[in-house]
């Protein structure tokens, strides 16, 4: 299962950028040459099969899964960036592949739940509010 927020959420003033995402999750940029691009939403998932079904192009993927397929999945689906949550170590070969594929990657010590919650708020969502699009 994955959850996607973005399109239906109440927009905040101005576009949400990669810099906003990094700040929200207290992230460290593992590779990000430019954090000014806008992002369209967030998908939180550990199952790449779900990402390939649910994620819209331009979304940021937040995941606790760390392997090469995360990078390839995000690049295939035209995602804006990947945030590796839960403070997991991200091996150099994964960062190298991200660089080769021009996909910004960040690491955060937040749990997947915390990171998704903070990013939900960045996109203007609040608990119980309609607007955030939930997908099974």
């Amino acid at each position: 299962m994955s959850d996607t927020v973005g399109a239906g959420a109440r927009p905040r003033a101005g576009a949400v950028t990669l810099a906003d995402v990094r700040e929200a999750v207290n992230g460290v940029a593992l590779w990000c040459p430019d954090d000014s691009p806008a992002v369209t939403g967030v998908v939180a998932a550990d199952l790449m099969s779900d990402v390939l079904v649910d994620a819209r192009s331009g979304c940021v993927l937040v995941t606790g899964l760390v392997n090469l397929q995360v990078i390839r999945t995000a690049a295939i689906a035209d995602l804006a960036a990947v945030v590796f949550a839960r403070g997991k170590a991200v091996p150099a070969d994964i960062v190298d592949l991200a660089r080769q594929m021009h996909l910004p990657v960040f690491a955060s010590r937040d749990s997947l739940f915390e990171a998704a919650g903070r990013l939900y708020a960045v996109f203007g969502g609040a608990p119980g509010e309609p607007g955030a699009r939930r997908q099974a």
Partner: protein
Amino acid sequence: MTDAEFVRAYEIVGADFTNAGRASTGIKEALKDMGLPSALIRRVAIAAYEAEMNLVMYARRGTMTLHVTPNDVTIDVRDEGPGIPDIQLAMQEGYSTATPAMREMGFGAGMGLPNIKRNTDELVVTSEVHRGTTLLMKVHVG
């Protein structure tokens, strides 16, 4: 793009998770170079990647062949593997024979074939148990 047809084949090795996805990435790059619309490229890339991951997870080896004409993008996937005993069942969302190792990779949720169908205009699956599976996927241009 030009009126000329474009054909490129990619060899895929079963259980090679280090390189899984390279063929689909190559297909995506080739379609970008042709200047096709990004939404179409995304559909083709997702369908190709789902098929490639299925091949890497289940088959011994196989090929993916990209064939582009002014009207269609076609990907022909052929593998040597266990085959699919019941294609109709395999097309159902959530049906999966994935191992725990496959699920740990982030795949095997039983969404592969249904998602390929969702992202293509035509899909023909043929399979022979203990021999292999063939997918013919087509997306119309324009």
